[in-house]
């Protein structure tokens, strides 16, 4: 790590430059972080009215950043948005693209090769959810397939005038932390059409943070890096600066591996199996999670619990963040141009519309995002307004601050302990006095009322003393913990670098499967085939539909398990489920017989056990002839 300068020496701009991240892309990526000026100039400005009609406010070439910021009166439900690809060019370009060899496969032509098929990496239920999701794309709004191809073409045309690799940065100071926030603007997100991902949308804003703190000697020390990744927030997003296993650095520059097409940032290069949750199914996921835990821990004791595909109600997608493409940043293929957002320009603060096409997708994935400050619905974006909360740092003090806070806590609790000891001692005195007084009242019926009042007072005081002692005891434990922590902190010991992480995103190794190509093919066709056979069954064997369906599902599951080398495990699980059902049926059918039988067995066992004990003890003498010792009376 290079020598740090005192805070006052570095301007905000210098700070941004000092720690600016390096972004490594995947081969086949075409859209890179760039400037917004030329993009906006290429766009037209539109409004989607609440009644569904669309109106063009500004034509292509007339839109500027100042125009974006101009206040506009919008009715409720209206959406203001930019449009990078205009409708007239759409149909023309689509026809041309079709002639040139189709709209798909653009990334492959640019050198990208897909990894193991995503559906081959997950189970049936996830595939069913995926099939449903694919079907919904027909019904809900989406970005037309040709748009990506045209966006690529237009983007190339802009870059032909001069390539620019830009980030927009800001520096904020909050609760001792100095946050450097880097915003990256991409003209298009072609994850779905180019990289077999979840969605496509025009425009994309992604962010990366570096959090620093000022040490006691006035030097700045980087502590955390936070890479934005889809909709994830909180502690799991964060990596500590000294975590070499997770955070790679070139000098003071953290390296982010960017997901192909989606532009989500990852700490390590590789392929990530990610789950895209479907909002209506979010409520089902915890139930499934509970069942899975119950099954794993209670029924399937000691069973292997895999991390992949845990949430069966989410769509599995593979994110390619290989880092084998263009690298941007200091000393890399291309260097950054930095733009400081201080003070926030008007386009940032006043334009709450979308930065690209509004596709009318109710789930939102195909609609363009709003700017760094806002969500799609115009509400404030957490990563801008509450960056500490976004990164899970709202509860984390800076290291020097933590020591101060620990010392203060220790002092306060020590004082409180002294107070408690005084209180306890005083109340104990009083209790003893009352106890002595109460004992003296025994045997005097004329003092019965007074003795009852005294009993109540003693009871109240006892409870009070008990609570005080409990608090004292808890404080002692807390004091010990605080002292231990303080000692560690003072001696420079840090927590394990992953202590704050609940779920660590790691690149997935390809699933070990037999007959790889055949399995991929099977995973691609299985759900569709299941649907077709189900329809055939319902036509030709309607009277045995249920049995046929059960047999069909069983056959599919067994075939799948053979491919995955889990035949034995699958047979076990299926048989256990059947045994469980049979057991429940038996219990239901013979409930009273079982109860009576259990009582009989229990009774017989008690008799046998007691008789055995009596016979074994049998004697009233010990083996050495001594009489048994007298038991203490209860």
């Amino acid at each position, binding site marked *: 790590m290079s020598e740090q300068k005192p805070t006052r020496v570095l301007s905000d701009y210098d700070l941004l430059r000092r720690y600016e991240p390096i972004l490594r892309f995947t081969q086949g990526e075409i859209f890179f972080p760039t400037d917004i000026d030329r993009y906006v100039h290429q766009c037209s400005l539109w409004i989607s009215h609440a009644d569904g009609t669309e109106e063009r406010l500004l034509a292509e070439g007339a839109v500027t950043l100042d125009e974006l910021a101009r206040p506009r009166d919008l009715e409720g439900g209206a959406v203001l948005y930019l449009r990078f690809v205009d409708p007239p060019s759409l149909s023309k370009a689509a026809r041309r693209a079709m002639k040139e060899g189709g709209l798909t496969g653009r990334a492959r032509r640019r050198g990208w090769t897909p990894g193991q098929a995503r559906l081959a990496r997950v189970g049936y239920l996830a595939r069913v959810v995926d099939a449903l999701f694919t079907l919904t794309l027909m019904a809900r709004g989406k970005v037309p397939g040709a748009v990506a191809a045209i966006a690529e073409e237009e983007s190339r045309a802009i870059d032909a005038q001069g390539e620019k690799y830009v980030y927009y940065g800001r520096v904020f100071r909050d609760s001792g932390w100095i946050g450097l926030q880097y915003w990256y603007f991409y003209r298009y997100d072609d994850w779905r059409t180019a990289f077999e991902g979840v969605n496509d949308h025009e425009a994309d804003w992604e962010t990366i943070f570096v959090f620093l703190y000022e040490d006691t000697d006035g030097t700045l020390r980087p502590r955390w890096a936070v890479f934005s990744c889809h909709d994830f927030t909180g502690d799991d997003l964060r990596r500590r600066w000294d975590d070499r296993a997770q955070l790679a650095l070139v000098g003071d520059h953290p390296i982010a591996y960017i997901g192909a097409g989606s532009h989500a940032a990852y700490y390590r290069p590789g392929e990530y199996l990610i789950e895209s949750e479907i909002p209506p199914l979010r409520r089902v996921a915890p139930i499934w999670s509970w069942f899975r835990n119950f099954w794993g821990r209670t029924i*399937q004791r000691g069973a*292997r619990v895999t991390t992949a595909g845990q949430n069966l109600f989410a769509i599995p997608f593979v994110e390619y963040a290989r880092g084998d493409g263009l690298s941007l940043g200091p000393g890399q293929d291309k260097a950054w141009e930095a733009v400081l957002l201080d003070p926030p320009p008007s386009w940032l603060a006043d334009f709450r519309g979308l930065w690209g096409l509004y596709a009318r997708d109710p789930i939102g994935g195909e609609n363009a995002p709003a700017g760094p400050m806002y969500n799609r619905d115009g509400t404030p974006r957490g990563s801008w307004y509450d960056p500490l909360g976004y990164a899970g740092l709202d509860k984390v003090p800076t290291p020097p601050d933590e020591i101060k806070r620990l010392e203060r806590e220790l002092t306060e609790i020590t004082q409180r302990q002294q107070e408690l000891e005084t209180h306890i001692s005083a109340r104990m005195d009083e209790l003893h006095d009352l106890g002595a007084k109460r004992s003296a009242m025994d045997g005097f019926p004329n003092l019965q009322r007074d003795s009852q009042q005294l009993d109540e007072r003693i009871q109240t005081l006892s409870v009070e003393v008990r609570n005080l002692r409990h608090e004292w005891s808890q404080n002692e434990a807390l004091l010990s913990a605080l002292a231990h922590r303080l000692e560690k902190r003072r001696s420079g010991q840090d927590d394990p670098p992953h202590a704050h992480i609940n779920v660590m995103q790691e690149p997935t190794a390809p699933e070990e499967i037999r007959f790889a190509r055949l399995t991929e093919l099977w995973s691609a066709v299985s759900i569709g085939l299941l649907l077709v056979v189900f329809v055939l069954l319902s036509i030709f064997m309607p009277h045995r539909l249920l*049995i046929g369906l059960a047999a069909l599902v069983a056959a599919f599951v067994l075939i799948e398990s053979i491919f995955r080398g*889990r035949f*034995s495990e699958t047979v076990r699980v299926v048989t256990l489920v*059947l*045994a469980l059902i*049979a*057991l429940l049926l*038996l219990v239901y059918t013979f409930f009273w017989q079982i109860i009576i039988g259990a009582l009989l067995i229990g009774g017989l066992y008690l008799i046998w056990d007691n008789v055995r004990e009596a016979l074994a003890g049998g004697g009233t003498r010990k083996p050495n002839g001594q009489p048994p010792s007298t038991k203490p009376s209860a």
Partner: protein
Amino acid sequence: VLVYLAWNYFKTGVLPYQSHVELPPYQSQAGQPREKPKLPPGALQGETKMQDLTLATRRPPAVSIVVLIFILNIIAAVLNWVVMVYQLGLLGAPDPLGALQAAWQTDQGPIQLVQIVIDVVLILIIIAATIGLYRLRRRAWTLAMLLLGFGLAVNLLNFLRDDPAYLLMLVRVIAVILLDQEPVRFAFGKKVGGYE
């Protein structure tokens, strides 16, 4: 089965799901610590621990019970098969081919003949599973679970058709529970049934 379980418990003090490898406890004789019992070479070295013990030593009692159940199942299936063959007039017929042709021409004949063939195959599979279970072969465990699962599925279907066979269902449930015990799975190999 219950009687056998009870007898086994009273005799050994060990339930089928408890570890079956019982080493003699250390005892002091005349104040001298007893010499540590010698295990086969490599017996406590991870993977080879179970393999170095003899089959009889490492066969859990639960497996013996399941083998017993399977033997009873084979006897019942063979008897059933003999009765079916007898009913079709094939047993002891002087002209077996002629008897076969005659049986084929009856109303239920073809179905019964197919069932006889299927039963023979099933009996052979059960025999193979039983021998494999006895010899603690990993694939036999899977085969046994498959057979039990198939049998339970048939039981459940019959239950839905108001033709329940509760005793058979109970025996199969017990067999599944016994085969799913950790020591049993361990005895059949580490990876059986996802055990780790």
